[in-house]
């Protein structure tokens, strides 16, 4: 047989079609949920439970008959705590896997790495993690708590208990930088102030010089916005000098990666935090969530459930509720439905999407570390994301696409 150019093209096309066909057949009916999370590397303490929460949420959705009769299928990539992989995998999710929605991203740096790709490809993006606030983009929904919700509760409580001189330690990237400004802002509102603010690259793990500096400065309290496995050694080294008994500490991040379980009671006791989720909450939704988690992953693993695993779980519930109401996954209809004030009763209480900012209205609990548990001290129900609300109005400016540094 003579190979002509035309015949070659025909054969190649047929072959390509053959190769592609099974993939269509297999997943034509499924809704594809893309996921990018750090399941390994120095941020795996954050990412692993989020991945489990995601699988539990989708399993529950499918067990209840899926969304409008269609099953949800997870397409997940492990980004290995490497920011470069976020860009690569988000391209893959958008172009090759053609997913209907993406949930994921942990660090703010990772969110900003994938947000433009998903916006360009018209794929709705859910970022379900506590962060510094201010993202204003109609394509993204940020369902975690932001500084006005968290720090506004945490700082007045800390100032009221301990005094007016604070020493701030923060991770050296956008979350830490912006959070430090928020902490200073709320300190000043209380008539208090930061005598010093130090930033640390994420791989710094030797804090001995800093601990001496803190002692020379003699603050009334420490405020920590340290992030990740390497920074965990600060709490160890701080406790090893015995300073934890002399200068109290509040943190915007401790406990999010279950640091309170890794640290011994002597190292962790007394540290003040404020989050949306309290594992000790006795709402029916939380009890059911805990028992399902225990049944799926073992009773041992229940203690690994943390703030952002629950945020991630609830982000998926919010998305699923919107898909049900919108009757499909088409982007514009879905976003309009989400903007109608979709709400769910999740393990951490009621969560409502704020139509104006695409952030969440939720409960905040002030908690204290006590024997490797987070003990609720005060509860503040249904806090609005007032920080992002001051700068972002997606009703008025639907084409807005940036992260604001808010009012400081």
């Amino acid at each position: 047989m003579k190979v002509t150019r035309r015949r070659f093209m025909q054969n190649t096309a047929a072959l390509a079609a053959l190769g592609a066909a099974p993939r269509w057949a297999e997943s034509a009916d499924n809704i594809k949920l893309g996921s990018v999370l750090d399941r390994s590397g120095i941020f795996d303490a954050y990412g692993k439970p989020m991945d489990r929460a995601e699988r539990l949420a989708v399993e529950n959705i499918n067990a209840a008959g899926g969304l409008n009769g269609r099953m949800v299928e997870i397409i997940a990539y492990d980004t290995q705590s490497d920011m470069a992989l976020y860009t690569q995998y988000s391209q893959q999710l958008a172009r090759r896997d053609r997913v209907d929605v993406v949930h994921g991203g942990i660090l703010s740096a990772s969110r900003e790495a994938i947000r433009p790709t998903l916006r360009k490809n018209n794929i709705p993006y859910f970022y379900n993690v506590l962060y510094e606030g201010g993202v204003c983009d109609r394509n993204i929904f940020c369902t975690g708590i932001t500084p006005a919700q968290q720090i506004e509760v945490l700082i007045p409580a800390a100032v009221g208990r301990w005094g007016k001189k604070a020493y701030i330690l923060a991770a050296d990237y956008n979350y830490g930088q912006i959070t430090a400004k928020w902490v200073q802002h709320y300190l000043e509102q209380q008539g208090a102030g930061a005598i010093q603010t130090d930033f640390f690259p994420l791989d710094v793990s030797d804090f001995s010089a800093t601990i001496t500096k803190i002692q020379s400065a003699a603050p009334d309290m420490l405020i920590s916005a340290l992030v990740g496995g390497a920074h965990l050694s600060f709490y160890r080294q701080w406790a090893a000098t015995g300073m934890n008994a002399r200068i109290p500490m509040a943190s915007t991040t401790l406990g999010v990666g279950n640091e309170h379980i890794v640290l011994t009671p002597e190292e962790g006791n007394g540290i003040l935090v404020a989050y949306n989720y309290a594992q000790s909450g006795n709402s029916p939704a939380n009890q059911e969530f805990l028992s399902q988690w225990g049944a799926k992953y073992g009773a041992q693993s229940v203690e690994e459930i943390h703030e952002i695993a629950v945020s991630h779980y609830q982000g998926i519930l919010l998305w699923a509720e919107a898909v049900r109401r919108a009757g499909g996954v088409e982007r514009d209809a879905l976003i309009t439905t989400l903007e109608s004030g979709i709400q769910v009763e999740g393990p951490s209480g009621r969560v409502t999407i704020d139509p104006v900012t695409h952030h969440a209205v939720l409960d905040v609990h002030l908690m204290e570390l006590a024997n490797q548990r987070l003990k609720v001290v005060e509860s503040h129900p249904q806090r609005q994301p007032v920080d992002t609300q001051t700068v972002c109005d997606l009703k008025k400016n639907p084409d807005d696409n940036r992260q604001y540094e808010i009012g400081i």
Partner: protein
Amino acid sequence: MAQLAVFVLDTLYSVAVLVLISAGLGIIFGMVRVINLAHGEFLVLGGYSAITAHGLGLNIWLSMLVVAPLVVGMFGVVVERLIIRPLYGRLVNTMLATWGLSLVMVGGLNMIFGNTTTGIPLPVGGFSVGGYQVSGYNLLLIVLAALQMFVIWLVLGCTRFGLLACGTMQNASMSAAFGVNSSRVYMLTFACGAALSGLAGGVLAPLIGLTPGGGANYIAKAFITVISGGASVVSGLVASAGLFGTVSQIFTAVATPIAGELALLVVAILLLRALPSGISGRYFRNRI
């Protein structure tokens, strides 16, 4: 007064850490003349050995001070026999081989322990100096580093093995002609260097969040210290670690930790510009 005392302690501590992480590399580079690019992974292997031994219920001191150097030392023997031995005298080839080894080790540690942060709690508490609280463990590391350098000096300068090792490193064929089993001396010296790296990894394990790729954080500093120190294992290393530790500590104290790291690198560049063969190339010639 107390503040000065604490500053001195902090400085000694950062010198001690430099000494600990560089000693193994110094022996392997300074004596065996092999550029060990897997040095960072030797440290990490020491850390994991200590953590695993402690996890299996062994006493924490035993895990850090005995198990870690023993495991890495034995690993060093295997590496020397299988990889390094055919490459003596070929500096560039040893770099390539040990770089490959470091990639294999990172991959292997990843497979065994997972790409995740692990650690063990600190075994000693703090004490106070004036109004300051200081970590007792830091003091321990200072003592350990001093002790270690003293022992290396003692072994190289005052024992038969040290004499044979120095002789073999200076002229292998001549010492072989005198009946010294030079292949065995090379192996043992390399193993000692590896064991010291293991010890450093073991004692640093409680201070850091250990990950399989974590060695990369130390290898640059270790190399800078060893190269700036020059050919003399003990005096060169102590001199360069003392200089860099002090400089980085001063800048960390008055500015930020980043400024400290930066100052260390700048001083190293200036130093090597002025003294290309290291501190001991000029000041401590022909000393150990």
